[in-house]
């Protein structure tokens, strides 16, 4: 059995246990031996993108210490995977990012599967998060996985490629612009009448969900939780 390490990310560690649980279920269903190194904390993205290079560098080194011994590290976050791949070489000179795979990359490119045997009889719309799509180049991999889910009704999200306005500390430093972007994203999500809004990053979903809980619309869900659902 191939061993893979799970990097759950700090956001999921703090707020969304169901997402990493879902990743464990999917990977185990496909026959992988999942390891959860308990010393993991944060990839350092918030520090790096907010301009705190030293702090980010220390956290990047810790990441290397925790995950250095694994050939494959799977994470349910496009932006954390992009952090390791794009920024670690500049911060620590480490190329560990090449072994960090966002879930859909691992499933489609490494495991070579699109149908993971899931069943989810609901209407779902999908928001391609910016870092996953643009920095990591996920393309339609998460969508291909979702299309193979039994019973799912996938509907298009209008202006899907538009940023939701999260952007890490951008949401605080430029709260008004961020909120204006969020309002459009929420309106587009609500216009789909879907039951769920799926994405590859719970940080973005926290933002969109935080708006939707006030204005109404589909329930935010990480697409891993859809892939983990069975009939």
């Amino acid at each position: 059995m191939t061993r893979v390490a799970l990097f759950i990310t700090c956001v999921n560690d703090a707020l969304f246990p169901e997402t990493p649980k879902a990743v464990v279920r999917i990977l185990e269903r496909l026959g992988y031996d999942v390891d959860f190194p308990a010393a993991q904390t944060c990839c350092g993205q918030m520090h790096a993108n907010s301009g705190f290079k030293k702090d980010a560098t220390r956290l990047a080194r810790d990441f290397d210490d925790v995950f250095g011994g694994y050939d494959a590290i799977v994470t349910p976050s496009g932006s954390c995977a992009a952090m390791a791949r794009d920024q670690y070489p500049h911060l620590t000179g480490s190329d560990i990012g090449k072994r960090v795979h966002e879930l859909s990359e691992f499933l489609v490119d490494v495991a070579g599967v699109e149908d993971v045997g899931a069943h989810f009889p609901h209407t779902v719309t999908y928001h391609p998060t910016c870092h996953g799509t643009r920095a990591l180049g996920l393309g339609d991999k998460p969508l291909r996985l979702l299309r193979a889910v039994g019973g799912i009704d996938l509907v298009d999200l209008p202006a899907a490629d538009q940023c939701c306005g999260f952007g890490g500390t951008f949401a605080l430093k430029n709260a008004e612009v961020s909120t204006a972007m969020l309002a459009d994203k929420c309106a587009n999500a609500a216009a789909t009448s879907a039951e769920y809004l799926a994405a590859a990053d719970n940080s973005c979903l926290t933002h969109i969900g935080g708006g939707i809980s006030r204005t109404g619309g589909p329930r935010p869900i990480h697409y891993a939780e859809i892939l983990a659902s069975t009939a």
Partner: protein
Amino acid sequence: MSDLVPAASLIPAGAPFPKAAKVALGMPQLRRNLAHATGTIRAKRAKVAGELDDWEALRDTAAAVKANVQRRLPELAVRFEENATAAGAVVHWARDAAEANRIAARLVREAGAEEVVKVKSMATQEIELNEHFEAEGLRAFETDLAELIVQLAEDKPSHILVPAIHYNRTEIRDIFSQRMGDAPAGLTDDPAALAEAARLHLRRRFLSSTVAVSGANFAVAETGSLVVVESEGNGRMCLTMPETLISIVGIEKLLPDFADLEVFMQLLPRSSTGERMNPYTSVWTGVQDGDGPQHVHIILLDNGRTGVLADEVGRQALSCIRCSACLNVCPVYERTGGHAYGHVYPGPIGAILAPQLEPGRHDDLPYASSLCGACYEVCPVKINIPEVLVHLRQQGPHGAGERAAMGAAEAVMARPRLWRTALRLARLGSMPWRRKGFVRRMPWPASRWTASRDLPVPPKESFRDWWKEREK
């Protein structure tokens, strides 16, 4: 009809971006105008860029040519000077805006003129040539339609390519009627009628001016030629009719060889106006006997550029060809417009160019981005704008409060046991703020979040607890 208020004057001068943006967000007409205009150009660009099979190869080539120029800038600048001089042009060097303005004003006086017509030029906006001329008792008349609108409104450009993007046609009709002097009575907001009024107004200027001022899109070192790319033909009039032509050109505009234009002339029109080809491309090399301007001056402008060149990550900003594709796709620019940036170069490119051209100023601009990366995706010369934004954030100063918060977060995250304790405490800590399953209102600074969004409550059972339980 209301009195005209220049849009730029509504943004408090020198206000930091978040504050300026908040003001701009409160202007519904501005937001409608911007969303409509950027949306239209965005779609046109995507269509015509998508037509070329070798679009990505063109982008790679353009990026490589520009990187090469940046490595060889001193050599190319001297070669350009030699070849332009040999062709009859007079080349001047300007360290900064003040020097460029002084040279330009002197040249106008030496030509015996007090007025000039202008081709749309970002370099002259950057050095505030019009304002300087006015202070010197000279007058500069913009001849690009949108620049004319902005000048008549006594406003500032809010976009690199379409500086009057923040006005709709009704507002433009009002500006013409009140400010143009020779606007026809009963002018409607029909685009053709507005264009005709501007044409008649400008024609008189073209015929009476003896000096023109331009910028240049490209300066070819191999031949000493300058290139201006435009749509309206006003540029061609300015570049051919007057006796004296003064061109102010940033040194980053250099290209090694004439053949390099082949790449950029495919990328620029498609990226900027969403056209396969722009209507007018003017190329001139020094003086042609009896044809066109007989006195050709070129002012090569540094104004902070060599400082940018010294930064190995930041210097890619000098590759910019001012197409404004990044502005048109930027979700931040689309909502705030250009004036909020407080600099002549707004949008994503401005956010990396302004703080580098004027070190110590505009430190707020690298944060005026969610790092969504839409700008990098469309940039015809592949400037990795998100990379430079993060780089500049890492160079810039940070407030004491943020430093303390980030330091504390790192200290916890660097100690796994402390991190686990902090996560448990987070659930307890959220208790006073919970309402119906969400954290809905928190004190400052978390209120910056909860003012417009809820937060989920930290879960009863963490992933770690679940994992530990199943490992038993």
